[in-house]
């Protein structure tokens, strides 16, 4: 009954360090997404993927990179972390359905603090 799993759940980084957030889903969903949530700003899309081997930029992609080498995994990388990237990160997946009706299934979130 895993659904969407994010690791790690918490991380503290120093400015300039790099890290990777891993998202794994076991629902065989085609679409996967990375969002960040900041107070008063709702959920903003960073990058997304419509299938294995494909990625696309969302609303706030700068400073992040992603990869989708396997259908079930979607990695979010920060090459050189900045304090502005302190946020809660959510991964989500969505099934491919007729007329695009699928809703988003979210992971539990990953809280990242950059000092």
């Amino acid at each position, binding site marked *: 009954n895993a659904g969407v799993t994010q690791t790690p759940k918490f991380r503290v980084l120093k400015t300039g360090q790099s890290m990777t957030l891993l998202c794994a889903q076991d629902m065989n969903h085609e*679409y996967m*997404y990375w*969002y960040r949530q900041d107070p*008063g*700003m*709702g*959920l*903003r*899309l960073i990058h*997304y993927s*419509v299938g294995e081997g494909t990625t*696309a930029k*969302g609303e706030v992609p700068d400073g992040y990179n992603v990869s989708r080498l396997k259908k079930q995994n979607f990695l979010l990388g920060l090459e050189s972390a900045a304090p502005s990237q302190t946020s*809660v990160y*959510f991964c*989500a997946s*969505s099934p491919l359905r007729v*007329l*695009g*009706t699928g*809703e*988003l*299934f*979210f992971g*539990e*979130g990953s809280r990242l603090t950059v000092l």
Partner: protein
Amino acid sequence: AQKVTQAQTEISVVEKEDVTLDCVYETRDTTYYLFWYKQPPSGELVFLIRRNSFDEQNEISGRYSWNFQKSTSSFNFTITASQVVDSAVYFCALRHRNQFYFGTGTSLTVIP
């Protein structure tokens, strides 16, 4: 461009009162999908409802009801007889093709 506006940042009600959360969206497409999500204090995001642009029927699920009006581009959410467990941040979202656009959320506090 797609946009979702939740003008109410914070709402407080006393338990058992009814409360309506507003959602206004913008899109030029004729085919789109609207969603509501709940984020309780524990932080997870919980799917509540999906509505497509061709179906303007209102929907009721227990104490929850949704009013979709294309004429005013609104998809409002009403909680009847609110309970403390309804305290959460509620997000409205619009799906356009492969992307979901979220409003900034409404924080609802139900006071016992």
